[in-house]
């Protein structure tokens, strides 16, 4: 408070005239600007560096997966017995391990030279036990794993949300029955359902998808139901109902937008679970089988030759871990962004 005047009595009298422009509207103005929920959350999400990096990385991976349907370094299924077990050779790089040379019994050997590989043929990540290009198989494997992941997400959004919403909105006996059914269904470990599916239907994408169709959406259904029940009692829903809106209109107009954050988060968490399951099953030989490539089968192949060609395991291992880490970080970031009360 700067005193322009030496003391109060010096302030001229006309300063004490009533303030003209204080109209009712101006007095009613709410002082602070308000942000819409999505903008607010997006701003918070952007600040989370880990989540942002993950999103970028994931976007890149997905992009590559799609692009390589059309353009692939090599044919992932093409076997070439002459070129088996070649280490990576990146043209231009002369670091041991990436230049076609590798340690064999303590000595550095140029395996490309050994196999008479022409100098314009480079396998950026080497070849596997059947002479197939690891990099191309990696792209194919990632693609299939991501495909499975998105199918899982699809089931989540459709079956999971629908089930939870219906159960929550209808309430009463229907809700009870639906919940009991859910409890029984989840009483069978996911794994067991998957195994049963795999045993009944031959191992392959169909059985994995079938198993996910039966089990993967259950957590989503539970969460959606819980949120629906919570929101159903909120006053604005009651207000909608007294105004005569039908239950389903309310569900779509009011409830779904408000639980959309929860749905997105749950979906983000369920995707890595699905990827893991496929990888896991393929790893123990129950999922996909060669020549199909998924991250799981790549891991399985790599494991078989782990002792002397460890990179065949590390490459898919790092890839799958990276993808799962990205999804998890994004999901964590989304959760923090949507519910700021959780952070300090």
């Amino acid at each position, binding site marked *: 408070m700067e005193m322009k005047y030496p003391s109060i009595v010096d302030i001229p009298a006309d300063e004490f005239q009533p303030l003209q422009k204080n109209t009712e509207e101006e007095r009613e103005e709410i002082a602070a600007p308000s942000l819409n929920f999505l903008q607010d959350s997006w701003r918070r999400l952007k600040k989370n560096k880990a989540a942002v990096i993950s999103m970028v990385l994931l976007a890149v991976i997905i992009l590559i997966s799609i692009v390589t349907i059309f353009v692939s370094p090599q044919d992932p299924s093409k076997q070439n017995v002459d070129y088996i077990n070649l280490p990576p050779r990146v043209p231009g790089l002369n670091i041991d391990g990436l230049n076609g040379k590798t340690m064999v019994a303590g000595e550095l050997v140029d395996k490309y030279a050994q196999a008479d590989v022409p100098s314009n043929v480079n396998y950026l990540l080497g070849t596997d036990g059947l002479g197939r290009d690891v990099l191309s198989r990696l792209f194919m494997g990632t693609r299939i794993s991501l495909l499975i992941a998105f199918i899982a997400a699809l089931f989540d959004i459709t079956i999971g949300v629908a089930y939870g919403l219906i159960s929550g909105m209808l309430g009463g006996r229907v809700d009870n029955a639906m919940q009991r059914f859910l*409890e029984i269904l989840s*009483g069978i*470990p996911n*794994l067991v359902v998957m195994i049963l599916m795999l045993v009944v239907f031959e191992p392959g994408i169909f059985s994995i998808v079938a198993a996910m169709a039966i089990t993967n959406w259950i957590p989503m259904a539970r969460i959606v139901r819980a949120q629906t029940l919570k929101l159903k009692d909120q006053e604005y829903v009651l207000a909608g109902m007294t105004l005569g809106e039908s239950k389903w209109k309310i569900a779509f107009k009011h409830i779904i937008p408000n639980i959309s954050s929860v749905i997105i988060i749950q979906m983000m968490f369920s995707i890595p679970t699905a990827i893991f399951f496929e990888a896991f099953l393929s*790893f123990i030989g*129950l999922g996909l089988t060669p020549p199909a490539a998924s991250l799981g089968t790549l891991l399985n192949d790599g494991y078989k030759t782990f002792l002397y060609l460890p990179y065949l395991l590390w490459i898919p291992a790092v890839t799958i*871990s990276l993808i799962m880490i990205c999804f998890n970080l994004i999901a964590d970031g989304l959760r923090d962004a949507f519910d700021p009360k959780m*952070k*300090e």
Partner: protein
Amino acid sequence: MGSYLKYFFKRVFFMVVTLWLIATITFFLMQLLPGTPYTNQERLSPETIAMLNKQVGLDKPVIVQYGIYLSNLVQGNFGISFQFKNQAVASLLAGRIGPSLQLGLQAIIFGTFIGIVLGTISAMKQNSWADTASTLVAILGRSIPNFVFAVLLQYIFAMKLRILPIAKWEGFAYTILPTLALAMSPLADSARFIRTEMVEVLHSDYVELARAKGLSRWEIAFRHGLRNSLIPLMTLLGPLAVALMTGSLVVENIFAIPGIGEQFVKSIMTNDYPTIMAVTILYSFMLVFVILVVDLLYGLVDPRIRLSEGSKS
């Protein structure tokens, strides 16, 4: 106490119903399976197959088979393994429960304990380097598939450093790596869960009141924070059990541990249907049992549920 007993019986009844349903579904699924349990069935003549069927009881109508199946189940008779022609499934599995159980218990105890510690540190020192570090551990534990982790452990400790055995189950040292591999999942999940719960608890009104009493942050964390966070943690035990069962399949395989998981995989490879069914039912039973125990314990441990008939005035 009356309402608690009712709750108890309701849950037990429910468990029995669930198990019955699972057994039934499993039975009928198995009926759908192609092929017969006999090796080299292509070389057998139809008459021989019919005769063998009669022997094994596969010629009876489905309903009757079902009845026999159920009554056998209740007596603990799971039939004869297709893979090991002379051995009853029950005895085959009985010998393997020990290692699996030990591995599972070690993993869950170790995993949840460390997870609770990490989660608590995270919550108390939010956004500090300790929080970041333990969150990182939790994320890695959740993201890196446990079989990758298992192989990694083998590589580092058994192959390179050579301080622990690479496989098999012949003494306590042999259990260390498999336990670590299997514990990652419970560890990551409980760390994340405890962190979330604790942060919420630490922001609650009663914690603010505790601070106003002059209690230190750690006193508050232990006396008020932990108890209120651990109770909901119990609800995690069911899914954790599932994760352990799943994980055991692969961990037992990698470390050549003679447990149920390892057998299960072999049975699937050899289409040993009785054993597959038996393990399915066994796992389901264990899961349902764990869920039951959790439900009952929860009612006992949370005073709001235990004493809901308490005097109110």
